[in-house]
């Protein structure tokens, strides 16, 4: 993704890349806007601005959050009190994420940290936030394992969880197997390849469970390291097993490495479905592969521009348009990546529906007040710019802290744009299988 003159971001990235973010005191970055009437409200924003995750969606996640805070402040903050983000770069390393979280909570004395791109970071961090009774507001990390059976009280996740990814991709294939592929659903051969962290493992487990539920055979299920230098043997094994549909769960560069080696290794299939992270960076994939990624699919919460804004709750369409305009003015992109929408949307939900009422109620900013406000959030479907509603699972529930109204969609790429194809009720008919002449389509 190119950026046009976002010098602050570039500087931040540079500082982070040089390791400065880990060694110097956090720079409290006041947001521009008219909210100047009172003491600022400080919140943490932790994402990966360097390392491999930066290029797999974490940077647009941060940029989306940045726009949300700017807009919130432009609209007056909380009764004139602006939000000030204390940023941290977790550098795509779990140990750095833990140290930065300790710094934000200890040195900076913050009551809440938002962001957290990677499930590999969210898993170890969540227990620490819970133990310190500080709020962790996850805007991206999706592994079900972060929350399942943990009964956390201070960890909240407005976005989707990994079980929903498996349900989306397997359901889409199951629904269209007979009509589009001409194969009975229980005869469609599936393969699952995934990065071996909590994110990949969680989504792969969900795919397997959903496939079993629908009696769809999995001919190969295999994990790999996202930093593996070679995946050609995996390609060979996939070619041997001849799957009809391949599900990949990866970051980057593993996705591009796999696609490149799959092409040169003669691997052909009827469809390939990615599951967020690197697969949601359509700009990058298009830059690298061009039309070769046309008609491939991806599962993630919908980027806001894919939705019909007129069908959202009153005022939400305007909010979505404001976000898209502001984001596009700051960053040059062909198609806003879902992570930008996630960063904006989930930060906006926090600021508008959790922080604002909590501050108004208590006059201050405490994790306990934020927690109480979060549990009272009740946004109907269509009430956020990504289409889903918000209602958190209460303490005691198996997924306490998880947004029960989050929705993942399956999207398909077409000429560097994405369009929703599942749920079928809101999507357009998919192109399935990959059309003849496609670089990865089965040869007749």
């Amino acid at each position, binding site marked *: *993704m190119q*950026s046009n003159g976002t010098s602050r971001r*570039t500087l931040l*990235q*540079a500082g*982070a*890349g*040089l*390791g400065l973010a880990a060694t110097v005191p956090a720079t409290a970055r006041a947001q521009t806007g008219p909210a100047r009437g009172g003491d600022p409200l400080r919140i943490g924003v932790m994402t990966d*601005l*360097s*390392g*491999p995750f*930066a*290029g797999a969606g974490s*940077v647009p996640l941060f940029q989306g959050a940045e726009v949300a805070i700017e807009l919130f402040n432009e609209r007056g903050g909380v009764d004139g009190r602006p939000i000030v983000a204390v940023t941290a770069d977790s550098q*795509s390393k779990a140990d750095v994420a833990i140290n930065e979280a300790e710094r934000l909570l200890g040195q900076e004395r913050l009551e809440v940290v938002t962001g957290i791109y990677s499930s590999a970071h969210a898993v170890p961090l969540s227990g620490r936030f819970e133990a310190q009774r500080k709020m962790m507001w996850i805007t991206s990390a999706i592994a079900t394992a972060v929350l399942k059976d943990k009964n956390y009280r201070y960890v909240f996740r407005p976005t989707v969880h990994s079980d929903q990814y498996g349900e989306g991709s397997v359901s889409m294939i199951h629904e269209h197997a007979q009509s589009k592929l001409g194969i009975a659903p229980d005869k469609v051969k599936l393969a699952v390849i995934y990065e*071996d962290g909590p994110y990949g493992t969680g989504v792969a487990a969900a795919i397997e469970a959903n496939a079993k539920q629908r009696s769809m055979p999995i001919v190969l299920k*295999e*994990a*790999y*390291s996202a*930093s*593996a*230098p*070679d*995946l*050609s*043997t*995996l390609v*060979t*094994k996939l*070619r*041997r097993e001849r799957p009809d549909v391949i599900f990949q769960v990866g970051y*980057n*560069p593993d996705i*591009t*490495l796999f696609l*490149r*080696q799959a*092409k*040169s*290794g*003669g691997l052909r299939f009827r469809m390939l479905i990615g599951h967020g992270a690197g697969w949601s960076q359509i700009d*990058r994939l298009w*830059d*690298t592969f061009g039309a070769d990624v046309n008609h491939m699919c991806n599962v993630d919460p919908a980027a806001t521009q894919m939705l019909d804004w007129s069908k959202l709750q009153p005022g939400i369409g305007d909010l979505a348009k404001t976000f898209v305009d502001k984001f596009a003015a700051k960053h040059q992109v062909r198609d806003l990546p879902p992570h930008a929408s996630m960063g904006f949307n989930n930060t906006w939900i926090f600021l508008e529906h959790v922080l604002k009422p909590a501050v108004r109620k208590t006059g201050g900013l405490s994790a306990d007040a934020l927690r109480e406000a979060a549990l009272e959030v009740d946004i109907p479907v269509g009430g956020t710019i990504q289409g889903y509603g918000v209602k958190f699972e209460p303490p005691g529930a198996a997924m306490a802290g998880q947004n029960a109204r989050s929705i993942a969609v399956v999207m398909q790429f077409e000429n560097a744009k994405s369009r929703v194809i599942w749920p079928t009720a809101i999507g357009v008919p998919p192109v399935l299988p990959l059309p003849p002449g496609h670089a990865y389509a089965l040869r007749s």
Partner: protein
Amino acid sequence: MDPFFLEALVNGILLGGVFALPALGLNLVFGVVDVVWLCYAELVMVGMYTVWFLYTQAGWPLGLAFAACLPAIAVLGLLLHLIVVRPLLSSPPINQVLATGGVLFFLQGAATLVFSTDFRSLGVDMPPMEVGEVFVSGTKLAAFIAALVGAGILWAFLKFTYVGTAIRAIARDREVMPLMGVDPQKIYLIASAVGGALAGLAACLLVVQLDVHPFVGLSFGPITFMICVMGGLGNMLGGFLAAFLMGLIISVGGFWGTTEFSYVVAFAFFIIVMFLRPKGLFAR
């Protein structure tokens, strides 16, 4: 023979070619200068960016971009020696390792500053070769052949030239050679430049196979070090052979087991070698 197993074998050999050049360069520098360049993979990363920039941004022909990459990274190797390594030659080894480790982070940070964290692709691909049911990547095969040619040229340089002979002599006994009129500082400089050029050549071969980003060195850097140690640190032939051995273990292990399992086997093999032959598999 199962054609898919045969393909895994071929993949393993080609993967060995990917590891072999960085292993050669690293071993050359260590063998002569007696300093481990912890930032070696990052020199390769800079080389990959050089090719990417010249080809996709400056519009140079690919061959010319490759040709420019070798001397550019050779100069970088020279500068690394002059600025970082030479002042520390008489320091304890840990200082040298920490200093080149610092260069590693510096180069990653500098690349982030200049190119951001985006993944850059050369967009160059060669059609695969198809023999029966066996597919061989054209790009990897070309890279493998180039690696062999590069290794051959290095061997000829070390074997048949006066400077090469001096390099080998210094590598064998750095105490005696100065007494015979060889200026070790000059040889260190030449070895650093040649080591840099090998990193440049490795960059040319890798940039057609991997996306370049500031942390691409993490994909092959650690395993390159492991290969060097396994082959015998400073032993160029040992490192070269160990690269192919490691490539085969990873590929065949992945074929019989899983991709993750193959690395377990590779690391277990490495540990066993370290127990049985602490100076390396091919140490004399």
